[in-house]
Every structure is written in structure tokens, then in C-alpha cells.
């Protein structure tokens, strides 16, 4: 099987969706089948990468055959591989769901021209966004990361504006400006790095980076930009309108995948590349903001009257957990566990939130509104969707055996062993609050009084319901395959000892 050992597979997750996106724009017929084929091909390539990774360890790829300081390198390490897997699986779900969603809208709603047009532009934009995310996860060059960030923000903003409603236009405009501001701040950070070291390659930077005023400023700028893009607590103001007003598949993409991209860069920069320059105060500050996000986001979610807004604010809250992990890495011997915890949280949240937005979108389309108060008895007409929502909720609360449980458990133990028990209080409080906002909806959906109005249900395709359940169940079962994940992540340690240009 020499073909599966070729190093060229590492560019496949970038090239395959890219070709798909271009084809969807050019051809315009059978776009769903193109997208489905692309999703499967992408899954195949990511699986091949997984196999190569398990056989040979971390990979490094020189674009154009040029060595690192001059050329651009791609690198595949444990976290990047898991992010690729996450995007591949979520992507298949989103592709299937989007098909059901758009065909329902075209057939059942008025103004089907508009819906046809939305579907026509959704596919190329979605595939381009997928390309951008995969490129971001694989990139090993600090300026190339900026280009991929811009690619992500432009396509995400275009997707967010797709719904055409006034509120979504304003939200998308603000989203675009905020992403631009974040990218520019990041770029200025890159400029400072280049001023100081004259190098853009991540691996080489990791080796020569020493704490200093230039790096300090660069890190501050990059962190500010990426925090803005990841919507950490006080900088989250743009997220709820943008995510709640988009079309349902787009909300799923934005909440499930896009925010993870900037978080991934942030985490890589802080704990892999510039780990030596991070001070304990900075870690504590980020952790504090994360705690604020958990509490504030959960309280807001509890207050919301609309299902989609509730799900959106829960994204703000769940992103907070990822930042609570920052101060826990300060203790030497447990940083590996924190890495695993964060990866788990990211993946579990991605699957669960994607499923949740899909379920919310289906409910919205079927019922015509998403006021939580009036959602009683939906389970009778939409059993699969309600079930998917409930399972995804289990993940957000963090009940076993879900991926969310493993993530939180690892965080809790890390907090206790490192003696920073105050973070564990926040984690537990967040879980309790999450159970409040999840059960508030689930109890409406399931435990209704007998005389509840049974909402009428339009005929719809299974594609509208099953992908959500599929992703929710994956999120639930994530905890069962935990050992394999830590296996992949432990290989990261080897990459940390590799010389640049090493690997394959």
C-alpha cells in the first residue's frame, strides 16, 4: 500500500475541499453530491493521515520543496490531527443536514427563489470554509496562519450574511469587522515576531524564542486578536447575534468549527511555540476571563426566551472552560493531561453544539418559531430531533460517558492536583448552570402535561433529523474511546523533541 504512505496526503484535506468549492461555484448542478463526495474523500484522506501518524509519528511537509526559513511548512501533530478528524466528521453531518434543510425550505416555504439562491451559494462557501479550517490546522508558518485566518473570516462572514434578514446582515457586518480587527492585531504581532527573529516558521521559532520585550508585545497582540475571534468573555459581544441570526447549518458551522480555529492557534502559540515566555499572571488572567465566560454565558443562556439564543450563549459559556484550562498548565507534571482535557472539550463541544444547532434549526423550521415557552410536546412530532437535543445537552452538562465529562473530569483533577482548587468550583458551578439551561428546554420537549398542544409537523426528510442525532451520539461516545486519544496526543511529546525538518 505504498500510495497510502505517500507524504502528499497531508495536502489532501486542503486541496480536496478546495477543488470541491471551485467546482460547486462553476458547475452549480448536483452541488450536494459534489459536497458529499468531497466530504467522504476528505474523511478518507484524514483517515490515511491518522494511519500514517500512528505508523511514523508527526509529519512535516515542505511546500514547494523549499526548506523552512524560506518556504512554508505544513505540520501534522497530535492536536492538529484530532482537529482535522473533528472537522471531517462534523463536516459530513453538516453537509447531510444542509441538504435536508435547504430542500425543505425550498419545497415548503414561500419565496423558494431566495432559498434556492441561498443553497446555491452555501455550498461553495462552506467548502471554502472547510478548506480554510483544514489549512489552518495544518499550517506551520506564522504568516500563513494569518492568511488562513483571513480565509476563514471572509468565508464565515459571507456565510453568516447568507440568511438575508436585516438582523443577520448587521450581525454579519459586525462579525466581519471584528474578525478583521482580530486578524490585523494578529498580523501586527507577526510583524513584531519577524522584526525580532526574522523567521516565520513555527518550529524554528519554538527553538530560538526567548523571553523579551519584542516577543512579549507580539504575544500580547496576537493573543488579543485571537481572543477577540474566539469570543472570550468580555470580547464576546459580537458572537450571539452573528451565530443566532444565521441559517441553521451556518450557525452549526460557526459555533461548532469556526471559533475552534482561532482557539487552536492561540493554544498552539501559548503552550507549544512560545511556552517559555508565558508568565503565570497572564495564565491567571486568561483563566479568570474564562471563569467569567462560564458564569456569565450560562446565566445569559438561562435567561433567554429563544432556543437559538440559548444555544448561542451556551457557546460563550463552553468556550470559557477552554480558557480555565490555561492556568492549570502551569504545573509541570500535569500539562499533558490538560492538553488532553482541552482537546476533549473542544471535540465534544464541537459535536454537541453542531447537533444542538441542527436540532434547533429543525424545530424552528417545523414549528415556525423558537420560543422556548411554546415548544411543549415537540417530542411527539420530532422524536429524533428532541432526542438529539437531549443527548447533546448531556454533553454540555458533562455527564458520563460523554466527551464533555472526560474533559471536565480531567480539568477537575488537574485543578485539584495542582492545588488551584478555586477553578474546580467554577467548573462545577458551570455544570450546574448548564444543567439548568439544558433541562429547561428538555423538560419542555419531553415532560409535557397531557393537554399540551401537539404542534403540527410538515413532511420532512430524514436528513433533517438524523445527522443531529448522529453527531450527538458521537459526542456521547467520545468518552469511551478516550484512551486512543491520549495515545495520539502523547505522540505530541515526540514532536516536541524533533528537530525542524524532521518527521518524515
Amino acid at each position, binding site marked *: 500500500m505504498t500510495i497510502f504512505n505517500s507524504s502528499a496526503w497531508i495536502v489532501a484535506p486542503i486541496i480536496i475541499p478546495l477543488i470541491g468549492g471551485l467546482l460547486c461555484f462553476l458547475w452549480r448542478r448536483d452541488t450536494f453530491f459534489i459536497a458529499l463526495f468531497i466530504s467522504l474523500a476528505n474523511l478518507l484522506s484524514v483517515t490515511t493521515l491518522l494511519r500514517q501518524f500512528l505508523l511514523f509519528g508527526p509529519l512535516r511537509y515542505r511546500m514547494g520543496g523549499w526548506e523552512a526559513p*524560506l518556504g512554508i511548512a505544513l505540520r501534522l501533530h497530535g492536536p492538529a490531527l484530532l482537529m482535522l478528524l473533528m472537522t471531517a466528521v462534523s463536516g459530513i453531518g453538516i453537509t447531510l443536514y444542509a441538504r435536508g434543510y435547504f430542500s425543505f425550505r425550498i419545497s415548503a416555504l414561500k419565496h423558494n427563489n431566495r432559498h434556492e439562491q441561498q443553497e446555491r451559494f452555501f455550498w461553495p462557501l462552506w467548502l471554502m470554509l472547510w478548506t480554510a479550517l483544514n489549512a489552518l490546522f495544518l499550517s506551520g508558518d506564522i504568516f500563513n496562519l494569518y492568511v488562513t485566518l483571513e480565509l476563514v473570516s471572509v468565508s464565515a462572514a459571507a456565510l453568516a450574511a447568507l440568511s438575508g434578514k436585516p438582523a443577520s446582515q448587521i450581525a454579519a457586518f459586525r462579525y466581519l469587522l471584528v474578525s478583521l480587527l482580530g486578524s490585523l492585531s494578529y498580523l501586527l504581532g507577526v510583524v513584531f515576531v519577524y522584526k525580532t527573529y526574522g523567521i516565520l516558521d513555527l518550529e524554528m521559532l519554538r527553538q530560538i524564542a526567548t523571553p523579551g520585550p519584542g516577543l512579549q508585545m507580539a504575544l500580547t497582540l496576537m493573543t488579543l486578536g485571537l481572543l477577540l475571534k474566539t469570543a472570550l468573555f468580555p470580547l464576546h459581544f459580537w458572537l450571539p447575534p452573528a451565530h443566532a441570526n444565521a441559517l441553521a447549518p451556518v450557525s452549526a458551522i460557526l459555533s461548532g468549527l469556526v471559533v475552534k480555529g482561532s482557539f487552536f492557534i492561540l493554544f498552539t502559540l501559548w503552550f507549544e511555540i512560545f511556552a517559555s515566555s508565558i508568565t503565570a499572571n497572564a495564565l491567571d488572567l486568561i483563566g479568570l476571563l474564562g471563569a467569567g465566560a462560564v458564569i456569565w454565558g450560562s446565566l445569559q443562556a438561562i435567561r433567554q426566551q429563544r432556543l437559538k439564543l440559548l444555544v448561542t450563549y451556551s457557546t460563550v459559556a463552553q468556550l470559557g472552560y477552554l480558557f480555565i484550562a490555561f492556568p492549570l498548565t502551569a504545573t509541570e507534571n500535569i500539562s499533558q493531561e490538560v492538553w488532553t482535557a482541552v482537546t476533549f472539550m473542544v471535540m465534544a463541544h464541537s459535536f454537541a453544539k453542531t447537533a444542538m444547532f441542527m436540532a434547533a434549526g429543525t424545530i424552528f423550521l417545523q414549528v415556525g418559531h423558537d420560543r422556548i415557552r411554546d415548544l411543549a410536546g415537540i417530542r411527539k412530532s420530532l422524536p429524533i430531533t428532541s432526542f438529539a437535543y437531549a443527548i447533546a445537552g448531556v454533553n454540555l452538562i458533562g455527564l458520563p460517558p460523554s466527551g464533555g465529562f472526560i474533559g471536565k473530569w480531567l480539568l477537575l483533577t488537574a485543578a485539584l492536583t495542582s492545588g488551584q482548587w478555586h477553578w474546580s468550583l467554577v467548573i462545577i458551578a458551570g455544570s450546574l448552570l448548564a444543567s439548568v439551561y439544558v433541562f429547561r428546554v428538555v423538560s419542555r420537549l419531553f415532560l409535557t402535561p397531557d393537554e399540551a398542544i401537539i404542534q403540527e409537523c410538515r413532511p420532512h426528510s430524514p436528513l433533517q433529523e438524523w445527522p443531529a442525532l448522529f453527531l450527538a451520539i458521537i459526542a456521547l461516545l467520545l468518552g469511551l474511546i478516550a484512551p486512543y486519544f491520549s495515545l495520539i496526543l502523547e505522540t505530541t511529546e515526540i514532536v516536541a523533541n524533533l528537530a525542524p525538518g524532521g518527521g518524515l
Partner: protein
Amino acid sequence: MIIKSRRKNKRRPFDPILLLVLLLTIGLTALLIKANYTIPVTSFGLAAEVARFQPRSGVESPVTAVLLNFRGYDTLLEVMILLIAVIGVWSLTKAPFPQKAVKTSPVQLAVVRLLAPLMCLVAAYLVWQGSHLAGGAFQGGAILGGAGVLLLVAELPWLRTIHSRPLRIGLLIGPLFFLGVALLGIINGRELLTYPGKWSGSLLLLIESTCAVSIGLTLASLFAGGRPADDLIGQTKTPACNREQKRC
């Protein structure tokens, strides 16, 4: 919600939040300037590296070598950003692009007739010059886009007959050719974006020419802010959209 409150208190001279933002920006800028002057200048960047490998890149201009060869991957993604911007603009508009048929004044027409071909020539020259001096696909494409803007401003009637498919092919020809050449490297058993040695000079020129055409079309489409009339799905059916077309 900083932005919101700003709007309401626009007239007031002493808005506390505005003051806070002002102080924060001044502080950040001061920090930046301070850091800027404390950075020890230890490196001279990648100039030596580029100079060393430039003979193998196939072009004489160092910037073009970096742009298309050493860091060609960035450029490939960047061309895609342009394309996504066009897709985004098309997805947002419901109007066909030359919006109304007006009589172009003869003076304007004469100017356009003179300038547009001239700009195409300049663009071609810039692309060709890019291999050894300043210039290249982006500069040439920008001039081509400028020519497109000129045509659009003059609202020439034949612009209305542009069909969607040929335009899309034009928009995609550069990116697709670039991608194809990039994949050639893999087919040859090398890395992505590796150009075959002795051909790389002419291949790069071809990439630049096709990309310049696509970039020019892209920029002109961005300026047009609409889509070809046959790209709209049944817009004339609903009366609301009819009204809209007249007004937009």
C-alpha cells in the same frame, strides 16, 4: 456593546466610554511604540536566503520569486480569498450588475475607447515585467480591474449581455490553472507547488497571466456589486423583486 452606546452619545463631548476607549488606544499605541524601540535588531530577515535560492526559482525579481515560488502557497490561498469575496458579494445582491441602460456621453465613450485598450496593454506589460522588475499578476490584474471599472462606469450596453457561465469560467481560470500547476508537483512525485526545474520560468509567467486575467475580472465584479442578469433565479416572478430591480 461598546459600539451601540457610542452611537447614541455621539453629540456629547464627554462620553465616558469614548474617553475610556481613547485612553485604552493611547495606552496600547504607547506600549507598541515603546516595544518597537526596545526590540534589539538581531536579525536581517530572510534576504540572504532568498538571494541564495533565487537562481533556482525561475524568475529574476526577488519579490515575484517569494510570491510565486518560495511562498507560493500563501499566494494560492490569497487568490482564493479574492474568489470567496466575489462569491460572497454575489450571494448578497439581487440586482444584475449594469443596473440601468443609460446613454453614455460621446466624450466618455471616446475616453473609454482610448483608455481601456491602453490599460490592457499596460497590464500585459506589467505582468511580463514582473519576472525581472517590479510588477506581476496582482499589479497587472489591478490595472485590468481598473479597465473593467472604467467600462462599468460608462455603463456600456453590451455589458448587460455578459452571461454568468463565461464570467465564472473567467473568474476561475487563474485559480484553477495555479492549482493545476501546483498539483503537477505531486504528480511528478515531489511536493505541492514544486515547479519542474527548467520550465518553471515559463510556467510562472503562464500562472501570472491567467491569474492576472482572473484577478482583473474578480476586481471588476467586486466593483460591479451585482451578478450577470442570467445568474438570478427567477427574480422577475415576484412583484416585490421587480420593484427592487427598478430601484436598485
